Structures are given as C-alpha cells and as structure tokens.
C-alpha cells in the first residue's frame, strides 16, 4: 500500500447555468478509509460525486486516483478506474431482475447467455463475502428500498469498485437497515476498499466515518478527523454560524381541538402502507411537531391531511367536521393551509411569475377574482404587499419564480399560506435549504401564528427545529406514532424513539 490518497480532487468547479454548484473544490480521500461528506441540501455534494463518477463534467479542475491524474470522460471510465457509485436516486431498471440490473453494462459478451452463469457465480461470492444477500431473479419493483440499495452496492462491487461512493444511502432506510448497511461498509473498508459516504445526519458521521469533510454553498469548508471533532462543530461548519437552537416563545395557550386524526391509514403510490392506524389531535394555539427519520410516513400523513392523498381508512376531522372527500380546494375554504415539503414540485410553479404563485390554490377566492376572471390588479397589489412584509427579494412580482433563490421561494410559499388567515396550518420542512436569516424569520412567523390561536402541525427531519418550535412532539416510526413527548425531552430519548428502539 502506498500513501497516495485513493482519490484527490484539485480545484473542481461546476456551474449549472446560474447555479454555482461546486466552487474550486479540493479534497483528498485516504485509501482504506470511510470518508464522510456532509452539507445542507443543495450544498453541492451530489454534484461533486457525480463529477468523480463521470456523470457530470467539471468546468475545470483535476482528479487524481492513486496519485495519477485521470480523465473521467464518462461513467465507463470511472468504472474502469475502479470507482463505483450508489446514487441518491437509484439508477435501477424497475422491470428488470436483480441479475439483469447487475449485468447491465458488464454483460461479458454480445450474448447474454454467456455472462449469466458467471454473473450468478460472482453474485454468490459477493453475497457470502460481504453479507449482501438478495434473490438474483427478483424484480426490482417488487423489492423494498433497502434491498434495492443493496442491489446498487452489488452493482458497484460486481464491477470491481475499489472506491465506493454512497450518496445519502440512509435517507430511505430504517434504522435496522442502516445498521446493516454500516456493518457492510465496515467489512468493505477492512478489506481495503475506500468509501465516500454522503449524509446530512451527523450521528451517522460520528458513528462510522474516519474522516469528514463539510460542504457549504458549493464550497468545501473544512475536513476533520472524525475522532477529533464534535457534532456541534460540524453543525456550525455546515450552516456557517452557531446554530440557533432556541426560538423565543411564550407559553402555549391551547384551546379546543381543531384537527383530529382518527385511525388513519395511508398508502403510497406503490401501495405500501406508510401511515398505519394513526390518531392524534391538534388544538388551537399549539404547535404539534412530528419528529422522525425521513420516509417514516410523515410525508404521506401530511398529504393525506392536506387532501392530496386519499387515505385507505380512518377519519380526519376539521373543527369536529368529517372531511369525507379529499379535496385541497375545499379544505382551503375551510381554513386549512399547507406549506408543503417540496416547494419546487408542489408549493410553486417555477415557470410562473411570482404574483401567480402568490395566489396558487387561492385563485378561486373572491378577493382574487371577478366572476370567471382573475382580478389581476388585486392579485398583483396583494403580491406586492406580501413581498414587502416578508422581505422577498428581488421585490418584483413579475419575475419568474425560478429566478428567486431557495430561501426567497420558501418565503413566497409561507406568505401565501399564512396571509389568508387559516385556522389550521400544516407545515412540512419549513426551512429546508433556507438560509439562517430566513429561518429565523419563518420561525417567528410560525410562533406568531400559534399565539394568534391557530392550530399548527409541523413536520421536520431537523430534530432541533422540532424541539425549538413545538409545544408537543409526536414521534413517527415505520408509519406509527410511537410516542408523545414534551420539547424538553432529551435529544437522546427522541433519537431512540425515532430509531424505533424505545417508546
């Protein structure tokens, strides 16, 4: 073994149009280690990894593998260099079998028949060596995500990867699955493979990595030995200043229940039960936070309450009235506002001008219409007022929404949903990818809403955000509400509950 780093990046730079995703990145990953990379959403982690894997091309910069400069023209070159990658969004063909997916691109000859036998044998070997069991003849679409990810890892190993990149592998895994994954990664490392692991989750970084690098807004801001750093330091590095964990707020003054959820069961698009027999209340003047690892049913729960997804069974009551038909428009009329998790695909139409988004969903409201027509004058005036009140920049309602930055886009959504004076507000990931200034602003607005007697249901994967805003915390795990806590419950306790270990 040499001392040469397994992979070294020098001055990598990448722009997507106006977005500067990677700015002059330098990075060195030692051979036989697990190297973590953390950073907020949109920090540029996936972009950087995709450049190493030859999926994107850097505008400038150099890549060295084992000390030798390499040109990675495409993924084939990356594979040939011994680099494998498990993408954040799986790159699998759903209606192919595991075996076909693994063979794709490494078929071993013009005819499939020839390669199949050796592929099966090789799979067997990998299975026993690393504990990567999976039925080679199963169809991908019939496998749970955990196993799909295993197929992705197998794909990389099958191609003889020496350097394995995993882009947010645990986002979709249950804690048990994540643990299993980590055990596999350790085995791989001990056999001399190099692993780059991307995640937002500081705990995971502390648990498994040897070294960790932090990215912020396209820049590589620091690299630390894991043993020599702390969660707090990493968090600070990630967001660029000391994290404000506590929001100023007074005592809650809860009134009657506004939202009641009774025995709710919801399935996702694939028909998997994501919310399983869940019941709770949200009262006027309180914030109920739902904590949980992403993918434990929170999204589906919010969508069901917001009327976007039809529940399979159970009941949702607003002000004691049963909502029998999923219809977001009617729910809005009844005073239910919804700040969605995904502003790009749900909360906003990026191609529309700002003022159009400022009434999306409320466009049928009498204040914004004259008969069948939209009252453009009223809408633009209203949009301008919101822009001023929420300090949305640039202050131009005729600008295309895509041209606002993430934080300002989120403010457009927040302003729209709060300003129509709802009774009930459901919020998903209010500050994802939003800068600190905007976070504070949005948090303050949420508290003001509570103090004005609104009922608020909040979902966030950021435990700190949940703890600082909520009056009560429900923890979701695998589709169940596994317990209720007050915000002063320790991080440890909540963490264990989120992992499904304690209740």
């Amino acid at each position, binding site marked *: 073994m040499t001392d040469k780093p397994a992979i070294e990046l020098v001055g990598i730079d*990448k*722009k997507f149009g106006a977005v500067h995703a990677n700015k002059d990145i330098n990075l060195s990953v030692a051979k036989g280690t697990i190297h973590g990379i953390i950073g907020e959403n949109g920090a540029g982690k996936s972009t950087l990894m995709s450049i190493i894997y030859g999926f994107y091309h850097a505008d400038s910069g150099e890549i060295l593998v084992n000390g030798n400069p390499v040109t990675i023209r495409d993924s084939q070159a990356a594979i040939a260099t011994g680099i494998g990658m498990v993408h954040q969004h799986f790159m699998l063909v759903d209606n192919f079998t595991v075996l076909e997916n693994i063979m794709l691109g490494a078929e071993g000859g013009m005819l499939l028949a020839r390669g199949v036998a050796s592929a099966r044998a090789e799979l067997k070997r990998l299975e026993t060596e690393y504990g990567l069991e999976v039925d080679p003849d199963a169809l991908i679409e019939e496998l749970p995500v955990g196993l799909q990810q295993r197929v992705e890892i197998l794909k990389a190993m099958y191609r003889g990867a020496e350097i394995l990149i995993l882009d947010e592998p645990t986002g979709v895994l249950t804690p048990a699955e994540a643990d299993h994954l980590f055990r596999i990664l350790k085995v791989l490392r001990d056999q001399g493979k190099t692993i780059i692991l991307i995640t937002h989750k500081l705990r995971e970084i502390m648990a498994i990595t040897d070294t960790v690098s932090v990215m912020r807004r396209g820049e590589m801001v620091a690299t630390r030995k894991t043993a020599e750093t702390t969660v707090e330091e990493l968090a600070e590095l990630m967001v660029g200043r000391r994290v404000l964990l506590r929001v100023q707020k007074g005592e809650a003054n809860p009134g009657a229940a506004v939202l009641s959820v009774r025995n709710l069961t919801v399935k996702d698009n694939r028909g998997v039960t994501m919310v399983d027999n869940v019941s709770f209340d949200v009262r006027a003047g309180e914030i109920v936070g739902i904590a949980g690892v992403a993918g434990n049913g929170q999204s589906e729960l919010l969508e069901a309450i917001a009327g976007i997804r039809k529940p399979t069974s159970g009941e949702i009551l607003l002000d004691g009235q049963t909502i029998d038909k999923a*219809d977001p428009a009617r729910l809005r009329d009844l005073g239910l506002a919804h700040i969605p998790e995904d502003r790009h695909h*749900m909360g906003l*139409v990026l*191609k529309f001008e700002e003022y159009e988004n400022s009434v999306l*969903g409320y466009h049928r409201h009498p204040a914004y219409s004259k008969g069948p*027509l939209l009252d*453009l004058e009223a809408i633009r005036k209203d949009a301008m007022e919101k822009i001023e009140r929420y300090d949305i920049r640039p202050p131009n309602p005729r600008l295309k929404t895509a041209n606002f930055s993430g934080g300002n886009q989120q403010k457009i959504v927040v302003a729209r949903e709060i300003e129509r004076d709802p009774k009930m507000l459901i919020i998903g990931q209010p500050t994802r990818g939003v800068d600190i200034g905007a976070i504070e602003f949005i948090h303050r607005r949420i508290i003001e809403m509570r103090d004005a007697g609104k009922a608020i249901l909040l979902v966030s994967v950021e435990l700190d955000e949940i703890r600082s805003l909520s009056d009560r915390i429900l923890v979701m795990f695998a589709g169940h509400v596994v317990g209720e806590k007050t915000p002063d419950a320790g991080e440890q306790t909540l963490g264990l509950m989120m992992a499904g270990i304690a209740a």
Partner: protein
Amino acid sequence: MSTASVPLPNWINYGLIPILNLTVAFLISGFVVWLIGESPLDALSLLIQGALGNGEGIGFTLYYATSFIFTGLSVAVAIHAGLFNIGSEGQAYLGGLGCALVALALDRYVPWYVTMPIAVIGAGLFGAAWAFIPAFLQAKRGSHIVITTIMFNYIGAALMVYLLVHVLIVPGKMAPETRTFLQGGQLPKLGWVMQLFGAKLGAAPFNVSFIIALVVSYLVWLLVWRTKLGFEMRTLGVSPTAAAYAGIPYARTVIIAMLLSGALAGMMALNPVMGSSARLQVEFVGGAGFVGIAVSLMGRNHPLGIIMAAILFGILYQGGDWISFEMPNITREMILVIQGLVILFAGALEYMFRPAIVRLYQQFKRG
C-alpha cells in the same frame, strides 16, 4: 456548462430564434426547388405574388388562415393544459357534421345570421364530443392522449365517410356530399373588407368565419391568461404536482381543456363548409388539423402568434397553389415539404441554434 438554463431576452426567444428556424426551413425548401430544376427565387416571387399580389390572392390566403387559426388555437389550448392533441383533424371533421346538420335544418327557414351562431355551437359541440373520449381516457384511465387522438382521427374519418356515403349523400348524385346549402346556410363573403383596402375579393371564399376566428382568438387569450380556469389549466400543464397541491382537479381540468380544444377544432369546419363550398364533403379538413400543430408551435401557443403563423401558412397554401399552377414541375405537395420542414425546425429542432446564440449573446454582453 450547459446553456439550456441561461435566460435570453424576449426578442431573441420570440423573435430571432423562430425567424432563424423558419429561415432554415425555407432555405432547405429552396434547395428542393433547385434540385428539381426550377429557380427558388422565381418560386418565392410566385409564392408572394400568388398569395398577396391581388385581392383574390389575399382573400384565399386569409381563407386558409381562418381554418388554421381555429386548429392552431385548438392545439394550443390543449398544450397549455399539458396535453398534446393530435386529434384536431378528426375533431374538425366531426365539427363539419355539426355545422352541416344545422345548416341543412335551418337554411330554408332563416337568414344566415340566425344560422351562424347555432352552427358555431353545433360545430363546437360535435368537435368537443369527438375529443371527449380521448380526454376521458386520459383523465380517468391514464391512456396516452397522443395515441388515442390519432386513433380517433381514423375512427372519425371512417364514421364521416360512412355517413356521407350512406346517409347524407344526395340520392342519385355521384359525389359523397350533402346537398348545397341555401342562402340561409351560407356565410357571406367579406368582399367589403377587401374593398376598404381598394382590393377586389374575386372568387376567394374569404368569409365571416374569419371574424369569428379573431373573436375566438381573443376569447382564448382571455381564457388562458385571464380566467381562473385558464390559470388552472396552465398550472396543470407545467406542474401536475403543484396542481394537485393547489386543489386543481386533474380529471375535470383535462376533460374541460380537451373539450375546449375539440370545440375550437370543430369550429374550423364553419370556414370550408358554410363559408366556401356550402356543403359537407369528404375530406374537407384536408390536413388543417395537422397544420394546427405547426401553427401553434410557431406561434408559441399564443393567440397573437397563432394568428401570424396561420397567415404565414395561408400564404404558403395559396402561394403554393399559385406556384404549382405556374410551374407545373412543382406540384402542390411542395407545401407539405415546407410544412414538414417548418415543423421540424420550429418544433422538434427549436433548440438547435440556442447554444450558439447563447454563446454569442454572452460574448456580446461581455464585449
């Protein structure tokens, strides 16, 4: 770095690029003309002369343009809702049935201005009805609207031929067509409009449906950009997920958009059926539904752009007739060649020149 997301000013996006695309299409057409041994310049001058050289030519140009405005609007309305309606051709065909039935029923009792509004409704209803099943299948069953509308073009053609041959034909006549409508079923020509400009309409069938087309264009603009329904259609068109979030009902919006699209296509029938031949004939649509695709693409799905593109295609059709009359070597199908090239370059290859233009533009801004 990719250039796809670099914003360009409107005059480039809506002016320079379409003109560039169009120019290439015409250059290649000119090459074809040259290939068959005729002079492209002569052909071009004949084209202009035939289409715009006298009142009658202009009349014909506007007559064709009228049909294309309707079908272009039809395609555009669907596109705004994210639907590719290839079925305007069939919907227009059925629209012809609607307006012919009205004309046949009323022409001997009432004057044209009574028949006309009812015929507009009849044509619209029949066109919409023909769009309904594909719309329903898309909305409720997720069947691909492109495929179903193609199928319905053929089903519509079979149905119309059956009706004309077996039901509507005048007994004893050779051609499968209805009887000629009386005065009450014919739309008056717009000779007076031409006279305002000191030109003579001659025999050109430029008629009142042109005015209907303009009014409808305005209404479509109003619908798409000024109404709640239009807002919902556009939302659905660019972001189905945002539409679901906003409580915009998918099935209802898809069906309404397609019904409107079908109705617009159907109204096209007014122009040839009541405005020109005064009877319902086989194949009277003559590809206008497909031209609508080109017109809508070129007009960037905006009524104003559609009117301009429709007139351009009107010039092509009328001028093309003239060319084929004057240059027997060039048959009228040259129009199809040009049309195909325009669709190719203004539609499928619309981004071909963009990267180069972006680079030039950036250099220009820097320099």
